[in-house]
């Protein structure tokens, strides 16, 4: 049961380096120019997701690139949409409102080859949300397996509105949560 301290000390140094944003320093830092040591965590880099406008989509609102809002305006089964670049397709017992938006995976290091993009709804809804034809639920699901960093992909958002919904429960308000994982 005795712990051999010399086994753990090297591991502890590595672990500590990772939480210092990937930089390691020697004890004599004050006497020398600091020499950065790039750790593996830093190589992996920081990736981010940017949501943007599609040329033929509704302009997104919100200053934070990863937290945007999309207002489709007033829509109805018969009178289509009041907002430019919002499509309405009539079905037998519902109608589908659609628009496009852009999404870019960004990698500050440039070392990331591809990333996986998942999407989910923030809350269950009576409306049916689809991204690129895939119906979304509250459980994240794959919408793009090989997203290349720096390349803006255009995605189709469709929302199916059942005709049976009435004025009392037909306010549409929900959020799509995207998650990007480095491959």
């Amino acid at each position, binding site marked *: 049961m005795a712990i051999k301290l010399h086994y753990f000390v090297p591991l502890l140094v590595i672990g500590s380096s990772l939480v210092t944003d990937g930089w390691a320093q020697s004890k004599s830092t004050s006497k020398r120019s600091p020499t950065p040591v790039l750790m593996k965590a830093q190589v992996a880099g920081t*990736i981010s997701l940017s949501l943007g406008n599609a040329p033929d989509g509704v302009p997104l609102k919100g200053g934070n690139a990863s937290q*945007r*809002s999309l207002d489709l305006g007033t829509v*109805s089964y018969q009178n289509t949409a009041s907002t430019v670049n919002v499509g309405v397709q009539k079905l037998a017992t519902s109608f589908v409102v659609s628009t496009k938006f852009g999404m870019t995976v960004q990698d500050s290091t440039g070392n990331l080859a591809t990333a996986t993009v998942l999407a989910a709804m*923030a809350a269950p809804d009576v409306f049916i949300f689809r991204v690129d034809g895939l119906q979304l639920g509250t459980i994240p699901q794959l919408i793009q397996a090989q997203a290349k960093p720096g390349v803006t992909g255009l995605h189709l958002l469709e929302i199916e509105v059942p005709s049976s*919904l009435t*004025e009392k429960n037909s306010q549409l308000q929900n959020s799509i949560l*995207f998650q990007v994982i480095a491959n």
Partner: protein
Amino acid sequence: MKKLMILVFAAVMMSSFAAAQAGNTATGTLAVTANVTSSISLAFNTSTGGVALTGTPTAASLAFGTVQAFGGTSAPGVTITNNGTTSFTVSSPVDVIVTKANSTSANYNLTAQLTTADAVNTWTVGGVTVTAGAAAPVTASGAYGTTTFPVAIQIPLTGPAGSISNTITYTATSN
């Protein structure tokens, strides 16, 4: 002291993995809003036993063909009724389909109006006289779905022979 070392080691390693993992994922949020409003639609359809409509469901045409008070043969779906010695009526059933969406409305109000005034003939929709002066109330509580409203023209025997043409505008409003 040994236990403390183990705990410190474990805590440092766990936070290290968390920091490394955090660099490999990112999230984004797209808030979506829309205002869904109620709406209704009106369409025409050929009624069983009536004249076959042409055109589109929302801009249909009804052609009675050549009609006459006495004798002759009327086109399929056309009913000719003699009204004594004063006039005759040509008529055909027409299906009007009113559909609602995203609405709690129980029924609808239907009106009809001629585009051009007709001083000679009398036009009716569902038995209600329709003129160009004002929209005539065909029904105040129509049931959503398909309802047959006959279209008829009463032609006086004293009127001139020739072509009769007009356009009826139907307006359905949800109650």
